[in-house]
């Protein structure tokens, strides 16, 4: 999936459906909880994993909403929604692996040197972003069978819902704009 997403999705789309609508989104939320617990307190306590998973569950929820919207508008009746969501969340594999690596680093680096973790985070995130989009594109193309133009529209819609919602929250709550235009 990570290295050959097009082939992987072409094969997976032919396989019978497994798992439910919420299986992978839940697993992704738990992964976020695990990553946050390990990177902040150095140990995966059940309390912190579950609390952080709940807090950050808006991320998988936004991803699910974006798939549902693509299915409704661009890829009607190509796949059952549950199966599409299941396949879509496989595209988050590069992000998931990256987050685990980051958590491992953060938990072993002294707090005084945490800046290094932020630096790695900032420099590698764009690579992950592009890589993630390539895998997502493969999902739209091979799993949903969208044409080139619809594929581009689906990627844009996906980006607008997932990243646009998060940006909109920070913009509307006045937390982002002063920092974007500021010099401090």
């Amino acid at each position, binding site marked *: 999936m990570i290295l050959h997403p097009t082939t992987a999705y072409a094969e997976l789309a032919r396989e019978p459906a497994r798992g439910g609508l919420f299986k992978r989104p839940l697993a992704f939320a738990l992964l976020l909880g695990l990553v946050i617990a390990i990177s902040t307190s150095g140990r995966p306590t059940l309390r912190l994993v579950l609390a952080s998973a709940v807090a950050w569950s808006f991320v998988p929820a936004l991803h699910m909403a974006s798939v549902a919207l693509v299915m409704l508008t661009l890829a009607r009746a190509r796949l059952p929604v549950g199966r599409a969501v299941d396949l879509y969340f496989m595209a988050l594999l590069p992000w998931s692996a990256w987050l685990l690596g980051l958590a491992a680093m953060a938990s072993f680096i002294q707090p005084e040197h945490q800046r290094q973790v932020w630096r790695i985070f900032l420099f590698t995130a764009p690579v992950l972003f592009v890589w993630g989009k390539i895998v997502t594109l493969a999902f739209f193309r091979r799993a949903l069978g969208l044409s080139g133009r619809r594929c581009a529209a689906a990627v844009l819609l996906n980006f607008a819902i997932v990243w646009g919602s998060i940006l909109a929250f920070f913009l509307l709550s006045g937390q982002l704009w002063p920092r974007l235009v500021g010099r*401090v």
Partner: protein
Amino acid sequence: MIPVRAVSVALVAAGLVAGTLSDVLPIHSPPTRGGYLILEADLHVHSFLGDGALWPWDVAIEARRRALDAIAITNHNQVIAAQIGRFAAKRMVTPLVLVGEEITAPDYHLIAIGIERTVSGDQPATAAIADVHSQGGAAIAAHPTHRSWAAYDTTAMRELDGAEVAHPLAYWQGSTELREFLAKLQRARGRAAAAVGSSDYHAFASLGVCRTYLFVRERSEAAVIEALRHGRTVAFDVGGVAHGDPELIALLGTRSEPTHDRPIIHWLAIVARVSALLGAAGLLLLRKSR
């Protein structure tokens, strides 16, 4: 063939069990010297519902793990998370949680501590400081590198209660500008200004890495604000240099050692995270054995 998935699940489960068992929180007793209770505080902390990773109450619990006696939750231009944090902290054995805000304007960032309603960043620093004071709070210049100096005019400098002299940005940028700003502030005020150490915590494990020693009469929110307003603080910059009233520095002596878990807890936490990380990586990256 090794059942990769079963082994991975077992590793994650073992990690969660070991991690939960290692979740032992120390109880920190602040010392009393010269008639003052000396509280260790991190007065610039972000939480979820803003751009922090943890729920406000989980930040308070992590603060206890790091032997902090007080924290101020200071999300950008909002106080909701801090109010939730204070509400929760009153019902748990955690450090004091003060309601704060990082007033975020294009040309300055200002920490407001001890406020009840949001202070707008859409106004000059002087007006924002006046608003903080009108709510009974304290105003601290956040990471005042030279790029923000122009925002603080003569009135603002006279009214500011303190400045962050210890901040993680100094680990890569040096402490010179922060020290110079504090010195300017002391001169402008003509009286003690609070020397503040804060971690500007968002994520990872840096909570409390820079901290403020507050000399208070009692362990309360009002006493923390009073100490800040009167400059009764000491902070060690990243070079280990103490800032604040020399008498208070002498009273404090050396700064506290970083807290460490008992060896068995320390190793249990390492086993827990390695086990959970390996298990999660296995679930993500390895194929099922058939």
